[in-house]
């Protein structure tokens, strides 16, 4: 078994730490083309996830962990990211349903499920300058990667990072920034940047 529920819980804790550390930087990014609160929601949401997971009993399955994370993120955050990440995490939970622990092949399944959940809930497509421009490439890279859980996530993280950087060159057609037209050019999408951080932390902590 590559990854246990305890590993997942540890990974969510590390995401919470990272979001707290990057809170103000993500807010500043959102201030440029949005409403300046992206880091607040991410830090708050993953903080609530960590707290909720602390309360889980020892026998929780990966699916329990992911569903608990989904619910606590949603009800603490709201905003755009709440439904997006809640749906993503619920899809990931469904993708590993019935398992006590995760195998190498589940790495790609989870990342792909996250990307699908976000696309479904947000009705977004690649290229619209949203977090999907990090999660989408991450899912593609994970699906075509081979090797261990960690290696798959490393490939996903790399692709998410490149995807996030690439949003600077996009004109937004979804979310708050869509009303900016050309004025959104030159700024990275905050949701894509935080998504790349999340995939990065997963790669560092799992495997």
């Amino acid at each position, binding site marked *: 078994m590559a990854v246990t529920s305890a590993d997942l819980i540890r990974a969510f804790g590390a995401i919470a730490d990272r979001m707290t550390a990057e809170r*103000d930087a993500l*807010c500043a990014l959102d201030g440029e083309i949005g409403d300046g609160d992206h880091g607040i929601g991410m830090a*708050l949401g993953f903080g609530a996830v960590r707290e909720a997971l602390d309360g889980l009993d020892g026998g929780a399955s990966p699916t329990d962990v992911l569903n608990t994370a989904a619910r606590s993120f949603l009800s603490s955050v*709201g905003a755009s990211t709440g*439904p997006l990440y809640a749906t993503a995490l619920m899809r990931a939970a469904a993708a590993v349903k019935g398992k006590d622990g995760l195998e190498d092949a589940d790495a790609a399944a989870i990342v792909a499920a996250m990307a699908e959940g976000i696309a479904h809930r947000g009705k977004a497509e690649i290229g619209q300058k949203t977090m999907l421009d990090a999660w989408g490439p991450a899912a593609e890279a994970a699906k075509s990667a081979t090797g261990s859980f960690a290696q798959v996530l490393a490939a996903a993280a790399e692709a998410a990072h490149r995807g996030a950087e690439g949003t600077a060159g996009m004109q937004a057609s979804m979310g*708050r920034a869509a009303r900016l037209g050309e004025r959104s050019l030159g700024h990275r999408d905050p949701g894509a940047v935080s998504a790349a951080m999340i995939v990065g932390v997963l790669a560092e902590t799992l495997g």
Partner: protein
Amino acid sequence: MQTKKILNAGEDAVDEMLDGILLAHGDVLRASDGSHRAIISRDGPRDGKVGLVIGGGSGHEPTFVGFVGKGLADAAAIGNVFASPPPDPALACVQEVNGGAGVLFMYGNYAGDVMNFDMAAEMAAMEDIEVRTVLTTDDVASAPPDRKDTRRGVAGNFFIFKAAGAAADEMMTLDEVERVARHANARTYTMGVALSPCSLPQTRRWNFGLGPDEMEIGMGIHGEPGIERGPLKPADAIVDEMMDRIFDEMQAARGDRVAVLVNGLGATPLMELYIMNRRVQARLQEAGIESHATWVGNYCTSLEMAGASVTAMHLDDELTRLIDRPCHCAMFRVV
């Protein structure tokens, strides 16, 4: 350097605010047992009446919570600052105000709000409560006319909610209340201008920058960039720019009537709003349009942002009757 605010912990700001609101206005408002972020009208929700639920992020007070009360909204779902509430409080609102005639969700057209309220509506459907949704899209600066339905909802909310709330209070059916709400939204036009930024309680940093003699035309009420940035102009020139745009959209004929809202974003003194109103009314008179009723003040704010918006609602007989109908909210009254 942190911005200056009268706060305890920034994370507690919204809940502490709601405590303070309930302590001041307990005669009109109460929190739902199901969610302390669901604020319910003590008087208003009743059997056979369509329930009107509004909501959105905090930081726009008196929008939304201040417009809960008899004759206007039956409940408001309250989010974090500038963040849509999650589905839970919206669902709690639905459960509290459902009088068997269905519930209408009304809120500004923002991606986050749409996703969260839609999830709440799906959950309500599972409980066999019919929930419909009308998004407000009065911000003419936020998209061209051919994409009117992608526009943001801003200060015009006030008129649109008021019309729908009065319709529900008149015991119209869900179909009719929805029709009124869509009609009111279609005839309401807002243009805003920002002079200085606001800061979130949690970060206490300015959420955008504006040069010392710049203003931003069409700025959103969360500090989202607007149409263009330019040098600060005299009051009359600013109003003229707003009114030209509103007249363009409204296509009112001589003799038509409007309701007017000159709204402050938070840090702009009443003096400046009334100076703006002088010009608004002059422009209406010049166009032969009758100003049926005028509100001036802070109705839809962006925390401590300086700036203002002008809203015109193009009235017909029905809207006039609904706008004039008494209501009794914590922060707004028509008698």
